């Protein structure tokens, strides 16, 4: 579709862009202390964007001369991104860390990041892909280092920028090789080209795939490209940590799915329920191994963390691992389960981080000891935290279980060659119980009971916690709505 016509279907992104511009300008007129009002502009913009997505109609095609796809699949992820962005913005309101900074840009940057993520989930051209990744990365460098006066934050951003640039560089190199092999940047042309490649170039192809994998792996923080995660997660403002652990991951997975399904797989993705790897590239096995490694490492290292925030950081690596399990299956239900997991993960993980933010705000720390007796002191917060922990462990009747359930179901369905993966997965969730329940232990078993009971003063906190907790619980036993939504969204534009 030509560029001009494309604009007609580009409303969400356009609205987002305009919002951000307005926000930046508006920021100039606010005084320092009420610069947080910028957030309202952004929120409004996000709302509009969401609206425009929903009314966007169900056109499935590609825009801007085949560089961007619009399809329910991308819309699904866009909604997730909008949701998490909105939540994170709301969370930021009572984050203690941000108090003594001018937060105007902060919110605008979040907006831009959302825009980048939009591009990521819908890119079907490696150029667009690269641009999107770069936008997102650069914005996250900003955000990670937003606390200028806080050394950790600086360090985090430094590590993030260098590591990000490095890995995107390697990825770019891989892309260049791929370009060389196929002579095009468009996914579908690449697909056909790869399909007709001779076996002599398979090593080069492998090289390209592996290099590209570095970029992707970095985005979803998969082993062995996860080393930046703990430091960055710990250094950056907790709100941003929460955001990084959800939105870019989601987008990254969307990207992975598209790429592996349409470039390295035979495009028939969603028409038949399973598909094949092209040209005998063993990337499914590769990803399977990486998945196992990712969740194992994530869990094992999470066990010995002293700070809850850091523990969550590592555990988010593990969760990436769970989701990766479903990639090599190359089956519709695999993708389905990833989308399911992401949806559930969004609520419980943001929830967990939000409780951490709240506890930081009250007791000032984020180590396990800071949670001692929390359950008795603040029954509400303790209760929802328990819920989130249980959900992250993946016990019924919580959303977390449903996510895991779908993942494992997909793996088992794929047949016995991936059972070992399922075993690794379930054993890992047993391990994860150990450190998640540790939080609960500190909240209820260790701290002595206080007679006085506190409930969060701010209505916003309660509202947000409820908004995150209720789905976490309800989706645990009633998830048909999600199911239907996902099965509608499970339509990927496949070049036709």
């Amino acid at each position: 579709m030509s560029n001009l016509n494309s604009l007609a279907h580009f409303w969400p992104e356009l609205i987002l862009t305009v919002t951000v511009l307005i926000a930046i300008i508006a920021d100039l007129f606010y005084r320092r202390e009420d610069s947080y009002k910028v957030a309202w502009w952004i929120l409004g913009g996000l709302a509009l964007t969401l609206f425009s997505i929903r009314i966007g109609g169900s056109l499935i095609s590609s825009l801007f001369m085949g560089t961007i796809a619009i399809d329910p699949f991308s819309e699904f992820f866009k909604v997730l991104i909008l949701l998490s962005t909105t939540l994170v913005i709301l969370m930021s309101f009572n984050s203690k860390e941000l108090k003594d900074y001018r937060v105007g840009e902060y919110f605008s940057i979040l907006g831009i990041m959302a825009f980048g993520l939009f591009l990521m989930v819908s890119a079907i051209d490696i150029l667009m892909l690269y641009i999107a990744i770069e936008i997102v990365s650069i914005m996250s460098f900003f955000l990670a280092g937003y606390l200028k006066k806080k050394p950790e934050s600086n360090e985090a951003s430094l590590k993030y920028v260098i590591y990000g640039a490095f890995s995107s560089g390697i990825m770019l190199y891989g892309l260049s090789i791929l370009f060389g092999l196929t002579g095009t940047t468009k996914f579908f042309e690449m697909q056909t080209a790869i399909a007709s490649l001779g076996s002599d170039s398979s090593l080069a192809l492998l090289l390209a795939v592996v290099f590209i994998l570095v970029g992707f792996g970095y985005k979803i923080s998969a082993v062995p490209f996860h080393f930046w995660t703990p430091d960055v997660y710990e250094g950056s403002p907790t709100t941003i940590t929460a955001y990084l652990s959800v939105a870019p991951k989601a987008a990254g997975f969307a990207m992975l799915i598209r790429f592996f399904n349409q470039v390295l797989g035979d495009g028939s993705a969603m028409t038949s329920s399973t598909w094949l790897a092209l040209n005998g590239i063993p990337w499914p096995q590769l990803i399977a191994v990486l998945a196992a490694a990712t969740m194992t490492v994530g869990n094992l290292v999470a066990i010995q963390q002293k700070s809850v925030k850091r523990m969550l950081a590592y555990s988010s690596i593990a969760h990436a691992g769970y989701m990766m399990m479903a990639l090599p299956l190359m089956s519709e239900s695999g993708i389905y389960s990833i989308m399911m997991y992401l949806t559930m993960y969004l609520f419980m993980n943001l929830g967990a981080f939000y409780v951490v933010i709240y506890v930081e705000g009250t007791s000032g720390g984020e180590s396990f000891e800071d949670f001692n007796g929390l359950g008795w002191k603040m029954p509400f917060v303790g209760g929802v935290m328990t819920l989130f922990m249980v959900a992250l462990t993946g016990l019924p009747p919580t959303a977390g279980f449903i996510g895991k359930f779908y993942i494992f179901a997909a793996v088992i369905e794929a047949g016995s060659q991936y059972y070992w993966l399922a075993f690794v997965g379930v054993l890992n969730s047993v391990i994860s119980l150990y450190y998640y329940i540790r939080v609960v232990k500190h909240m209820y078993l260790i701290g002595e009971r206080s007679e006085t009971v506190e409930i969060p003063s701010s209505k916003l906190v309660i509202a947000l916690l409820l908004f995150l907790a209720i789905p976490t619980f309800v989706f645990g036993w009633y998830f048909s709505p999600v199911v239907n939504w996902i099965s509608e969204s499970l339509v990927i534009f496949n070049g036709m």
Partner: protein
Amino acid sequence: MDSLTNYLLVSSILFSLGLYGVVTRRNGVAVLMSIELILNAANINFLAFARFGGMNMTGHIFALFVIVLAAAEAAVALAIIINIFNNFDTINIDDVSELKQ
């Protein structure tokens, strides 16, 4: 003496140098420069492929975009490094490790 392989050779050498620099350099700026090397290695690839693959201009355009993005990235990175310098009085990234537990 004007064949694809030579270009690829050059680019791969650049790439490896870049990698090496990233891994061994201690100076933040130096590390950034090494990264630039990697990016440009990629650029050379793009151009070379575009040129010899007898294709349209895609490669060139790609290269242009890369240059632009690299610039942006470098800008951000340098900003951060300056900030680091203000906080740590060093841009030697060995010394920037508060976060080790």
